[in-house]
């Protein structure tokens, strides 16, 4: 092998075994940002290696370089000891590198086998392929039916298709990008079992995530990135969440504080009430809402757990007024029948809303923060007689920036020049400052760095303590446990009853997410894995 000389002369590690993949001094620069700055990474044979870092730390760029999607500006890649250049994903697959992306690339209207056939570099006859799919899927505990249409499959099942698609090429290195962000706790366990089996057969796995518990449960070794640079290497099992987080963030974190309600506290008035809300969607791949009942009182935070795609989008639209309900009594806001009211009218009653898409929905990308303050702020006096009060709008934006520590060049900064976390702080700040009685927040900290996430959560908790009724929809269970008084689960368009957070366990939520059918063997294993984390 051409690589042996350099290996021998190089390090002590190479005497043990040639690593499957070694990156040295990888740098990648984009206009305005350095995504990777001299990053080293080594993955051994049969090793499950975590790549850990906050959003924007450079994880995705590094993986795109390994998979041949982009080229590094500097640095070298060694594959099984030999230096290689990976010009495109086809070359990466040829080497034996497979990647499962965070966002799936499946055609909804095609079957599993058709989707897989599309991605193969060499054509395989259809019945042959179907057999291979069944063989591989059985061998690794990933049951899928090759003839099934993709649109009828759950997100977890789709991920299986993506994994099987990679496994068909017998990869030696499998890259998984945030694989659990769309899975129920049970599905996560199944995935872990598959990954462990693959590792025992000598397949190396690069596991990208920011979820510390998972990494400590699953991974043998970890590389931690911060701001595009290598921040450290670790054996996750020997670390605590706290020490890992410190390597990720670079400083200690402040926890947010939710003071539990005392039993003798007077319950607040019901401010948001859904009564037998059913709503069908025209989107062929959307979810119909069925018979949803929910009450949110003043001074409490209710969390809605569940995987996106189970009716979250539809429920949010029905709450905000972007979709009208059938009966005006389906939704009551501050006691008023609001089901047939439009978004502006619901805001007039006292509703504010933070949507999950920040750019393009919560804020207009091309407009300044001042102009974005006006988006929903018009009703608190920024508009008189149809004319815009520029000074008041500017002051409002300035106050929001100062109060929520939004990092930007000033109130004239354009919304899309802000990082996701800072824009979210601005939007949450704006909606908070509009004196809401009811506030609905979707995915409050999606893609937000840990520091900003804690600040946003604390702001929402402060609002609750000031007597506002809050509804938070989130995929992050940890977050819901951290900030909610009660939690309900949305699964397949149906909402479970609400339970006080203290009485709920992760396993119970997992069962509710799966539609309420408990699987005893699965749940006990789940409890074991999740509780010790």
């Amino acid at each position, binding site marked *: 092998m051409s690589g042996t000389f350099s290996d021998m002369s190089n390090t002590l590690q190479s005497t043990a*075994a*040639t690593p499957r993949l070694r990156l040295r001094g990888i740098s990648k620069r984009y*206009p*305005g940002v350095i995504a990777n700055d001299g990053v080293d990474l080594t993955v051994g*044979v*049969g090793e499950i290696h975590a790549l850990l870092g906050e959003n924007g730390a450079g994880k995705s760029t590094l993986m795109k370089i390994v998979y041949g999607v982009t*080229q590094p500006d500097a640095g070298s890649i060694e*594959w*099984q000891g*030999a*230096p*290689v*250049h*990976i*010009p495109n994903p086809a*070359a990466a697959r*040829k*080497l*034996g590198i497979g990647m499962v992306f965070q966002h799936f690339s499946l055609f909804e209207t095609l079957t599993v086998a058709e989707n897989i056939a599309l991605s193969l570099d060499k054509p395989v006859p259809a019945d042959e392929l179907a057999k291979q799919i069944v063989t591989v899927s059985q061998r690794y505990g990933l049951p899928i039916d090759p003839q099934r249409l993709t649109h009828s499959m759950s997100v977890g099942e789709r991920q299986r298709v993506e994994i099987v698609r990679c496994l068909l090429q*017998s990869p*030696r290195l499998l890259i998984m990008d945030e694989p659990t962000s769309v899975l129920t706790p049970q599905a996560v366990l199944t995935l872990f079992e598959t990954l462990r089996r693959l590792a025992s*057969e*000598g*397949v190396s796995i690069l596991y990208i995530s920011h979820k510390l518990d998972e990494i400590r449960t699953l991974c043998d070794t970890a590389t931690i990135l911060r701001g595009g640079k290598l921040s450290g290497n670790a054996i996750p099992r020997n670390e605590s969440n706290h020490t890992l987080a410190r390597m990720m963030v670079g400083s200690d974190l402040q926890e947010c504080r939710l003071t539990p309600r005392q039993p003798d506290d007077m319950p607040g008035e019901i401010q948001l009430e859904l009564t037998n809300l059913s709503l069908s969607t025209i989107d062929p791949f959307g979810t119909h809402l069925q018979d949803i009942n929910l009450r949110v009182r003043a001074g409490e935070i209710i969390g809605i757990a569940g995987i996106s795609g189970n009716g979250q989008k539809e429920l949010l639209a029905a709450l*905000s*007024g*972007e979709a009208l309900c059938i009966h005006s009594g389906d939704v009551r806001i501050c006691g008023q029948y609001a089901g047939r009211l*439009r*978004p*502006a*009218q*619901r*805001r007039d009653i006292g509703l504010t*809303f933070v*949507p999950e*898409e920040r750019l*393009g*929905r*919560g*804020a*207009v*990308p*091309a*407009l300044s923060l001042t*102009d974005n303050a*006006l*988006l*929903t702020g*018009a009703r608190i006096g920024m*508009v008189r007689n*149809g*004319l*815009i009060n520029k000074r008041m709008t500017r002051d409002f934006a300035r106050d929001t920036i100062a109060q929520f520590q939004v990092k930007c060049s000033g109130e004239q900064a354009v919304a899309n*020049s802000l990082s996701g976390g800072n824009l979210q702080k601005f939007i949450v700040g704006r909606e908070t400052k509009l004196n809401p009685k009811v506030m609905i927040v979707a995915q409050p900290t999606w893609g937000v760095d840990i520091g900003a996430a804690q600040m946003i959560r604390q702001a929402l908790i402060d609002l609750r303590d000031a007597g506002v009724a809050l509804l938070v929809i989130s995929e992050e269970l940890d977050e819901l446990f951290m900030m909610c008084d009660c939690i309900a689960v949305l699964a397949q368009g149906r909402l479970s009853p609400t339970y006080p957070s203290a009485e709920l366990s992760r396993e119970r939520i997992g069962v509710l997410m799966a539609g309420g059918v408990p699987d005893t063997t699965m749940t006990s294993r789940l409890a074991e894995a999740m509780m010790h984390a």
Partner: protein
Amino acid sequence: MLNFKLERRPTPSHVMRIAAPLIASLAMLITALIAFAALGTPPLAALYSFFIEPLASSYGLGELLLKATPLMLCALGLALGFKSNVWNIGAEGQFTMGAIAGGGVALFYGATLGSLAIPMMLLAGIIGGMAWAAIPAFLRTRFNTSEILVSLMLVYIAQLYLAYLLHGSWRDPEGFNFPQSKGFDDHTILPLLFDGGRATYAFVFALILAALSWLFASKTFAGYRMLVSGLAPAAAAYAGFSEKRNIWLALLISGAIAGLAGVCEVAGPIGRLQPSISPGYGFAAIIVAFVGRLHPLGILLASLLMALLYLGGESVQLSLQLPAAITGLFQGMLLFYLLAADLFVGFRLKRSVRPTSSAVANAVIDTPQPSA
């Protein structure tokens, strides 16, 4: 191997955004020189005849304002819609319907209305254009049809309707069977801006409307709502700005102004209704709106430039016997170069050197090995 790719600029330059129309105009001039040379005319003489000669007299300046007026009016209305993502392509049709409605008032009620005739004609023109634009607005908000196609097709209906009237009941009985109406009475003709030219007070209306549209876009909440609807429709829905209201407003305003331009044209230089009342002002206004960066001041300048292209085209036809299509050629080139310049404001061309072939071969030769 070299290959080029477009890379998005992190922050497009503001200066370049404003300079782009100037660069496009310059590129158009250079291409014009080449085109004149290819046609066998001395390029500099042709340029003089095209761009300088029309402006050499006060009559010529009047003609410039006369041609710029309908362009500017139509473009002001269209720009408002374009900014809010409503694509009214049929200003030419709304212009024609405005002319028909205002002309009808002049022909049939001009005598009875007396001194009220002109205000009533202008009002009728505005309503005519608005009504014609209401059709695409209704179909879009009710059945989600494309306002681009509907407004465009309505142009031809409006023009044929005008021809139908002029071949039928509106034809001047003493007009030797020409398909045209009677000439308008003097008191139904717009007063001239200055003696020795044909420009009318319509140019003043256009200036006033430019100022109003600037106020509307930058100071009023209604203007802000339309801007948000154009930039980010989902954000408009989130904030509770009605999409339907936006579509109606954009189409009615642009239709109304195009209708006003139409009636001003027949009640001005033409002085009667005839089958051809516009050399494509409504379409050229689309170019004017974009060359003017959808901003009132830019539109004022762009409409003067476009008017000069019309005048220059006529001038070289007369003095150098060049074909009439030259005006269209220049208009098209201007838009083409503007779009190209805009592309380079947002993106830059990057030369990327492909990896050497040996490096690629390396990856292919290093085939995966069986597991260790």
